[in-house]
């Protein structure tokens, strides 16, 4: 079982992503601009944060299907607390994050303590969070709040017409944090160890159970965090938000080169995966000529082209 990975596939991914961007820049007026690049980060801030959490889960050889629902739940929870219950925004955010962590830790505990398949437990989590979102409110709640406006008005100008808002900045900072977490901290390395071979990790004396619960708790945090970013992005809460986002997140992680079999991959790849999705979406929005039927096919074709080129390059270098 010889896995020769290291940076190779990552370079391939960067290369393909860059050329995709370059081709689009030649094809569409106004595509090549700081503004579009800044938008890539703003538009994928919440997907990016969940995908980073998902990266950690997948690295530990687990999977978490509940993220989309937890995001939806968080948005409606925050909107309810701020708008209807009159809780101050930081407190509402704190509550949401704590709930997210507890929810993730709960699923993790079930998975670890009873040795259950993570797929099933988190599928249960998906349904549960989805239902609970509707229990809070079955329709969307708009957030009208001074604090929100202030956060939304906070922007860093990076170029003409190009701003990085709070969401994008949070995403970038969080990415750096995850990079650090995975590469430099004990928890991060244990995650890789558990994903590489759980039995061996146990025999090597690593606290496997705690790491696994930690992974799901961390991902619960990420989902809640992403939910908060979503409320910033939309200025509202809606239990329908986030439907199917678990698949987007998993796909972004995997396109970034993290293996579903665990133990191999990382945050940088995920960032690239998320940006890939964003670039493809932006291209389609810039083009704007497709009929709905062709639109889906175009997304798939771009995705396929991307992956195949990336694969071919990575293999060529081997």
């Amino acid at each position, binding site marked *: 079982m010889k896995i020769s990975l290291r940076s190779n596939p990552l370079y391939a991914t960067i290369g393909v992503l860059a050329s995709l961007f370059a081709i689009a820049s030649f094809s569409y007026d106004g595509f090549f601009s700081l503004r579009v690049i800044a938008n890539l980060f703003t538009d994928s801030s919440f997907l990016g944060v969940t995908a980073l959490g998902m990266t950690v889960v997948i690295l530990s050889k687990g999977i978490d299907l509940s993220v989309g629902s937890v995001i939806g739940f968080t948005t409606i929870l925050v909107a309810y607390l701020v708008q209807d219950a009159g809780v101050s925004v930081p407190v509402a955010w704190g509550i949401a994050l704590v709930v997210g962590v507890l929810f993730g830790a709960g699923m993790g505990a079930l998975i670890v303590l009873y040795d259950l398949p993570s797929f099933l437990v988190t599928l249960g989590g998906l349904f549960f969070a989805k239902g609970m979102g509707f229990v809070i409110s079955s329709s969307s709640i708009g957030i009208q709040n001074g604090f929100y406006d202030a956060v939304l008005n906070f922007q860093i100008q990076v170029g003409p*017409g190009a701003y990085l808002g709070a969401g994008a900045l949070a995403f970038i900072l969080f990415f750096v944090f995850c990079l650090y977490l995975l590469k430099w901290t004990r928890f991060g390395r244990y995650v890789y160890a558990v994903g590489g071979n759980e039995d061996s990790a146990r025999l090597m004396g690593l606290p496997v159970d705690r790491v696994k619960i930690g992974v799901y708790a961390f991902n619960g945090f990420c989902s809640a965090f992403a939910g908060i970013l979503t409320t910033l992005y939309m*200025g509202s809460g809606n239990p329908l938000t986030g439907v199917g986002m678990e698949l987007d997140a998993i796909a972004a992680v995997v396109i970034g080169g993290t293996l579903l079999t665990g133990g191999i991959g990382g945050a940088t790849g995920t960032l690239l995966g998320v940006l890939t999705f964003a670039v493809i979406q932006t291209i389609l929005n810039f083009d704007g*000529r497709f009929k709905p039927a062709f639109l889906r096919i175009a997304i798939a074709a771009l995705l396929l082209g991307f992956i195949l080129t990336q694969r071919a390059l990575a293999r060529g270098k081997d």
Partner: protein
Amino acid sequence: GGGGDSAEKKLKIGFAQVGAESVWRTANTDSMQREAAKRGVDFKFSSGEGKQENQIRAIRSFVAQGVDLIILSPIVETGWDPVLKEAKRAGIPVLLMDREIETSDESLYAAFIGSDFVEEGRLAARWMVENVKGDNVKIVELEGTPGSAPAIDRQTGFREIVDKHSNFKIIESQSANFRRSDGKDLMESLLKLHSEIDVVYAHNDDMALGAIQAIEAAGLKPGKDIVIISIDAIKEAFEAVVAGKINCIVECTPLFGPLAFDMAEKILNGEPYERRVVMKDKVFDQTNAAAAIDSRMY
């Protein structure tokens, strides 16, 4: 060709559509695209695949592209303020289509053209109250996707009227996600649960058409043993009305194209326009469906 003069710049309009989840929706998209082609507009179409985040992303990219005007068919009512502010800052007017939004700042959009889902619910209920007789009419409501605007509004409007009539009672209200096969599955099970159902009110035609199949499979006659009422009025539903299987459909037209572009041009040319245009929804039943069916486009 060569009609394009550099001085006379082509109009660039972006359209953020909800998705392609139903015949009604694709007819709506079609109408817009056809009209845009006719007028020679540089038309940027984006499908949100049923997700608000995608729609917001599309609007932001329209802003980045510097379109002249944005048409938005919002999937939900709330959550548009941040992105509409961005469009406003860029000086791009926004035309809302099909659904209204909830906002603190009405200046965020230039105008609204669309239908009133609550009114559709009311129309359906009014038809029922007038045409269905009985002391204890039992109604089954097939809801759309939980949380979606049409589902909520069509329920609200319908109940508003039903609540005023004590001889009408909604005995069951369940979601079939606007889907035909879910409509059938749900109806099959409700038929077993309730021995007597007088009226089925479906939030869209697809669910009604699915429910009809279930009713027939149970050996009953839709339209006779059970009164069927639905909303949208796609062609297939019209045919069912003519065939006597659906009793009443409330039309919610998707053909906004010509009107929307007229409005867009007015806004851009600074001509006066009406800020809120609500399409007049029509009600069809056995009495008038046959005459209208040939004019159906979708």
